[in-house]
């Protein structure tokens, strides 16, 4: 029981890393990024390639994360420009189409170039005792990395001027602009940051399990579900929702199988939209 719970938390933190990126890009850019899982996979693949070149695992991981960030930067500055010319619904719809198309391109390219690919850091995995449960140190390391990433993100958003600008825009884009904040500059930064967080998720996936080139769509879908349950504008809510859905997923997969687990997760997201449309932790108004 407890082992499944821990497993769920480990998975859940990875989902949160993906979902927070989706939340940030939606909150700031008004686009639901359907290629977000592909950022994660691309980051993982880049890390694996660097690893094959004989670079140390730590540097290879950082390189993979940076590659995901660069990919995000390029996508924001090129592919997304037509969508950013519009606002509101038009931007959302155009953004859906553009990012979906981009996800097919990434999936196709990766499956074609690296058909048998999977990233695992072949590190010795000693077991460690946590509350009487033997845990793989790799899982603990992956969770620790996720927690540190979140701590960094929260500190950035709370303490820096840029972070405050970003929160202002997420709260109310028109209001922020009337306070003199330029949304387009901060948007590029956020897309890059979100892609890097996806890269962290991709790379750490290789740390405690394995990462395949075909996993992009699954990451995107799970990330979207978590973002919806967390409330697509709330970062705290998304973090909590990731852990919660990770746990739900772990139990459901263990007892009723992976496909039914998906249906349960979808029902969860649906129920959230019906009962708490602004997300799990939304303040009552």
């Amino acid at each position, binding site marked *: 029981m407890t082992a499944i719970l821990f497993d769920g938390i480990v998975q859940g933190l990875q989902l949160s890393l993906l979902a927070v990126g989706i939340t940030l890009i939606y909150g700031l850019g008004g686009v639901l990024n359907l290629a977000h899982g592909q950022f994660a996979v691309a980051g993982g693949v880049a890390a694996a390639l660097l690893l094959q070149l004989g670079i140390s695992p730590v540097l290879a991981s950082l390189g993979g994360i940076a590659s995901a960030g660069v990919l995000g930067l390029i996508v924001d500055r090129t592919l997304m420009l037509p969508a950013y010319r519009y606002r509101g619904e038009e931007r959302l719809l155009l953004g859906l189409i553009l990012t979906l198309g981009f996800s097919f391109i990434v999936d196709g390219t990766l499956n074609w170039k690296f058909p048998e690919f999977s990233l695992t850091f072949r590190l010795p995995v000693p077991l460690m005792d946590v509350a009487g449960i033997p845990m793989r140190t790799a899982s603990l390391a992956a969770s620790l990395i996720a927690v540190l990433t979140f701590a960094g993100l929260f500190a950035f958003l709370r303490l820096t001027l840029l972070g*405050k600008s970003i*929160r202002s825009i997420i*709260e*109310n884009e028109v*209001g922020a602009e*009337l306070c*003199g904040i330029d949304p387009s500059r901060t948007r590029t930064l956020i897309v890059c940051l979100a892609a890097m967080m996806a890269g962290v998720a991709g790379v750490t996936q290789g740390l405690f399990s394995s990462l395949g080139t075909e996993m992009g769509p699954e990451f995107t879908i799970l990330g979207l579900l978590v973002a919806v349950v967390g409330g697509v504008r709330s970062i705290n809510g998304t973090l909590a929702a990731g852990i919660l859905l990770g746990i739900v997923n772990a139990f459901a997969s263990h007892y009723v199988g992976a496909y039914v687990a998906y249906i349960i997760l979808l029902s969860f997201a649906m129920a959230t939209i019906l009962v708490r449309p602004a997300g799990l932790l*939304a303040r009552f108004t």
Partner: protein
Amino acid sequence: MPEAPLLSVSALNAWYGESHILHGVSFEVPRGEVVTLLGRNGAGKTTTLKSVMGMVGRREGSVRFGGKELVALPSNRIARLGLAFCPEERGIFASLNVHENLLLPPVVRAGGLPVGQVFDLFPNLKERLSSQGTKLSGGEQQMLAIGRALMGGPKVLMLDEPSTGLAPKAVAELYRNLSTLKSGGLTIIVTEQQVALALSLTDRAYVLEQGAIRLSGRSAELLGDPAIKKAYLGVA
């Protein structure tokens, strides 16, 4: 030679999508004056303010502010130059409390009011410091929007229908506050449905009809002319 007006709008045209809303609006706002834009619903008052602020899809003409042309600038640049706009929907951060609303947006201009002076001006806000934006009354939301604008150190404050949805007592208080700001020398542009109220505060008035200025004059003179009021403003 008299000083050039702080804000001067000439031959301003604006479109929302295909519909042509403003047809060559021109008006001037001298430094330190309070100006009102009047007119019926749909006459183009809000669109005029939004066009000055760069918030409409397409605009042509000229908006000169302190000698600088604004017509091609995005609204965040215009805000940084010192034009503050409180839209009718107020643009406050609904899920944040009063204090966070005032302190969250980074200050992008020097010369703004410190938060303490905002509370001196609007003591109500101080009492509701930890209330969430959406829980405030309409009047308090309006004061929060104005307070946040003042923290940005504006040279011109533009208010779109600030009395909309406010109880009569809140309207009276709002106009007392605006009068205080006026005597402090702030340049203000306000659109208003309550004609007599607006004319009593302001120095100068422009009356809009179908996206163009039909009439302008000193507010005191318009206030004393019942024929004009009846013809242009739909009030007896």
